[in-house]
């Protein structure tokens, strides 16, 4: 799973009632509220702001409203999946069409065509099970797997991915 420390900028608007000694604290709190926990197709999942550049830049008063705008530079901890990346995850649900793997906040769909070639869907147990004699490998809720991302769709506030378990060194984690 690819985590990054990324340098970003964000414009924060502040109401005039906050123009007092605690203004810097308020500006930073606004930044945290606006960014932490957000998802973007561009930078991925923003987990936390880890550093805000000091000193804060001077604010600019917006004509008409009296609000001030601050353009802040900050470093954030983000999780951003990439096409072609191999990562580990935990199976969150299983259907006959494939499995959904949770990789932190990201859900990766692995279609039945992309599960390991020795596995078949077992109707009675609602899981994929290995057909090889003596193999206990199963894909069921809670199984830890290693997959490669083979397709991704990113839009403004959402990321969706499809993956494969069908290749050497991918599949159920031992």
């Amino acid at each position, binding site marked *: 799973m690819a985590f990054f420390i990324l340098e970003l900028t964000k414009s924060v608007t502040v109401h005039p009632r906050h123009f007092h000694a605690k203004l810097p604290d308020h500006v930073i709190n606004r930044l945290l509220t606006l960014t932490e926990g957000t998802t973007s197709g561009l930078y991925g999942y923003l987990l936390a702001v880890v550093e805000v550049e000091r000193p804060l830049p001077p604010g600019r008063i917006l004509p008409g409203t009296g609000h001030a705008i601050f353009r802040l530079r900050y470093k954030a901890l983000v999780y951003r999946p990439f096409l072609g990346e191999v990562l580990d995850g935990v199976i969150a649900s299983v259907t006959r069409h494939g499995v959904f793997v949770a990789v*932190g906040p990201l859900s990766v769909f692995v*279609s039945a065509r992309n599960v390991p070639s020795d596995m078949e869907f077992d109707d009675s147990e609602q899981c994929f099970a290995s057909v090889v004699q003596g193999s206990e490998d199963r894909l069921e809720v809670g199984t830890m797997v290693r997959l490669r991302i083979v397709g991704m769709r990113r839009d403004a506030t959402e990321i969706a991915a499809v993956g494969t378990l069908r290749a050497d060194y991918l599949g159920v984690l031992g």
Partner: protein
Amino acid sequence: MDLGVDQEENAENLKFGELFGDNEHCQPLLICEVAELLRQKRAELPAELQSSLGPIFVKSEAYVERFNQFRSAEVAKVVRVRLERHPELHPFERAQLANLLPETPAEAKAIIPSLKGKLDDDVLGQLLRDLAALVE
């Protein structure tokens, strides 16, 4: 289900686009380093705000706790030093090696294809054994 292929980005040949390809302003982290950052973040919050952390934070935290192989901040530093000894490795490759801990050079090159031709199998094998020895 076809989600379309993003031409600009591909981890297999280390193409990360404009924002993430810029090594000066973007640094990949190892899972063990993320674990430490998330612990700090939680420790900074007063008790009554612990539950205010959103689902993205909580899910990532659970993931990192589950897949973190190097338990302490000290070991995480040693892992980082070992990886930095190989300047020919891309920062993303370093993170992948420590996060996925392949057992053999062949496995490493299969799951991180950009490693092909970069390191001698002996050197890579030694690095993998060094990392494996640090797992707790």
